C-alpha cells in the first residue's frame, strides 16, 4: 500500500503529522516512539521574542473536545533554533515550523530566521494584529493577503497558511491566501469557545475564551475542507478531531492531501503510529490502493481536482 505523497517542500512517507502546539518540539513523544515513523513533525508556534503565554487554567474539557488558551508560549525563534531544533536533526522526517506574530514585521522576522532550518512553514494567522486593533489576520482577507505576501517574500521554503474556522467565508479566505502566494493550506485551527464555572461565576479559562478542538469540531473541519478543495489548486493539510485511520480517510475524501492529529495525542500518546499502522488496511478495505487515490474522492467528478481524476 502506497502511503507516499509529495507536497510542496514535503516528501511525506505517510500523510500523518502532529498538529502544531500538541507536540511541543517533539522531545516528549520521542520517548514513546521513533519520530521518523511520522510523515512530518510540526513544531509549536514560534514568535519573535519569548512569550510566557496566558495564566492558568489554560485548558478545559468539553463534550468530545477541549478548550485551550495556551497563549503561544514559546522561547522565541532564536532560542528555538538554538535549543530545540538540534534535537530534531537526528530525524530524517520533514520539519514544519509553525510561526505566529502580532505584526507583519514579526511574522517576517520569524520566517526569515527559521525557514533555513525547516522543510516548510505553517503560517498561523489566527493571531490578533495589534496594529489593526487586534482583529485577527485570519478573519480579514486583506490582512491575510498582506501577511502571506510578506512571509512568502522572506521564507526560503514553501508556506502553508493555517486557516481559522471562525469565519463566514472560508472559501474566500482560502482563495485570497492562494492568490497571495500560499503553497498550501492547513485547515482547521480551533473554533473560539468558552466554558463558565457555575460556582465561581466566571469563565474557567484565565484567558476567558479558548480554542475548541477534538472530535466535536470534526464535522466543521470536513465541511470547510470539502468547501475549499474545488476552488484551490494548492494542497490542503486537514485537521480537526482526527482519532483514527477511518477519520484520516474521511479527511482525504473531503480533499485533504495530508492530515494532522492534535488533541487525540493527549488521550493516547501512541495514536499517530497506530493510525499509520492501520491506514493501509483501512484504505484497502474501502477499495483504495494508495493515499493519493482517496484525495478528494467525495467530490463529484465534475468538480474534482486532477489529483482525483488521475
Amino acid at each position, binding site marked *: 500500500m502506497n502511503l507516499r505523497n509529495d507536497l510542496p517542500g514535503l516528501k511525506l512517507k505517510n500523510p500523518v503529522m502532529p498538529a502544531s502546539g500538541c507536540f511541543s518540539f517533539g522531545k516528549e513523544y520521542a520517548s514513546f516512539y521513533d519520530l521518523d515513523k511520522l510523515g512530518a513533525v510540526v513544531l509549536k508556534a514560534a514568535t519573535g521574542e519569548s512569550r510566557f503565554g496566558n495564566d492558568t487554567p489554560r485548558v478545559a474539557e468539553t463534550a468530545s473536545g477541549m478548550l485551550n488558551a495556551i497563549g503561544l508560549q514559546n522561547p522565541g525563534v532564536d532560542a528555538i533554533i538554538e535549543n530545540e531544533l538540534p534535537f530534531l536533526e537526528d530525524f530524517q522526517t520533514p520539519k514544519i515550523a509553525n510561526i505566529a506574530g502580532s505584526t507583519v514585521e514579526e511574522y517576517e522576522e520569524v520566517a526569515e530566521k527559521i525557514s533555513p532550518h525547516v522543510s516548510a512553514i505553517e503560517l498561523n494567522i489566527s493571531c490578533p494584529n495589534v496594529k489593526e486593533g487586534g482583529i485577527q489576520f485570519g478573519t480579514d482577507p486583506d490582512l491575510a493577503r498582506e501577511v502571506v505576501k510578506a512571509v512568502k517574500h522572506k521564507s526560503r521554503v514553501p508556506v502553508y497558511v493555517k486557516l481559522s474556522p471562525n469565519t463566514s467565508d472560508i472559501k474566500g479566505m482560502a482563495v485570497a491566501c492562494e492568490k497571495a502566494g500560499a503553497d498550501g493550506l492547513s485547515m482547521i485551527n480551533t473554533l473560539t469557545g468558552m466554558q463558565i464555572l457555575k460556582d465561581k461565576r466566571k469563565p474557567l479559562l484565565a484567558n476567558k475564551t479558548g480554542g475548541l478542538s477534538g472530535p466535536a469540531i470534526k464535522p466543521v473541519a470536513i465541511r470547510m475542507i470539502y468547501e475549499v478543495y474545488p476552488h484551490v489548486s494548492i494542497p490542503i493539510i486537514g485537521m480537526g478531531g482526527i482519532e483514527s485511520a477511518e477519520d484520516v480517510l474521511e479527511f482525504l475524501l473531503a480533499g485533504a492531501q495530508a492530515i494532522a492529529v492534535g488533541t487525540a495525542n*493527549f488521550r493516547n500518546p501512541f495514536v499517530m503510529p497506530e493510525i499509520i499502522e492501520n491506514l493501509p488496511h483501512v484504505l484497502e478495505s474501502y477499495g483504495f490502493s494508495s493515499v493519493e487515490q482517496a484525495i478528494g474522492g467525495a467530490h463529484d467528478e465534475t468538480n474534482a481536482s486532477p489529483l482525483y481524476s488521475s
Partner: protein
Amino acid sequence: MRLLDVEVIENTRIAASTYEMTVDSRGELAIQKPGQFVHVLVDPPHYLRRPLSIASWTKTTLTFVYKTFGSGTKTLVNKLPGDRINLLGPLGNGFPMPEEERIVLIGGGVGVPPMKGLAQELTRRGKRVSAVLGFRSADDVFYEEELNAYADVTIVTEDGSYGKPGLVTEWVDAGAEVFYACGPNPMLKAVRDAFPIPGFISMEERMGCAIGACFACTMKTFDGGYVNVCKDGPVFPKDKVVLP
C-alpha cells in the same frame, strides 16, 4: 512511563464521594517515587484524562484515591473488579528523599493520598514522621489508620466535626526539620508562609497531555522562568513556583 490497560482489583468508597481504586499493574509500571501520578482515561463524552496521585503501590498493584468533583471521575465509580481502565504513568518527579530526620507531612483533601506512599517510604528509611491531614468535615476524612501505621497522625477538620478544629498549619510538629505538603493552593500558601523550615509542595493544575508537550500546566517560577507541573513537578521546593 507506560500506557496500560489494567484490570480493576478493588474500587471502594472510603469517604464522602471519595473512592479508593486498586488495579493490577502486572509489574509493568516502574514507579520510582511517592508523589508521582497516573493520567487516567474516563468514559466518553469526557475527552481528557484525569491526573490522579499514586497513593501506594506494590510490584504488581497500584492504588489511587479519587474524589468525584465532576462527571468524569464519576464514570470510574461503577467500574467493578475485572473491568479494565486505561492509564498513563508513572508521571512526574515525585518527592525527593530528605537528609533530615524529623519530617512533617501536610495533606489537605485529595492532597492526602500521596502522603501514604511517602510516609511508607520515609518510615522504611527510618525517619521520624508526623502527619497533619486536613479535611472539610468528618464525612470527608480518610486514610487515618493507613497513615497511622507509618506516622504520628493528626486529623484536622475545618468545621471541627472530627479530630482537631481549624487549619492544618495550627497543628504541625514544631520540631520538624522539613515539610512535605500537598493540597489546595490556599493551604500550600499558608504552609509556606507559616514554616521557615525547608519544604516541598506538590501542586495541582489542569492538564492536557501530562507529559510536558502541551503547556497546559505551566506555572511561573520566582526566578522568572517557568515549569510544567506535569513533567517538572508536581513536586517543587517550596520557594520555586509562584502559586496562583
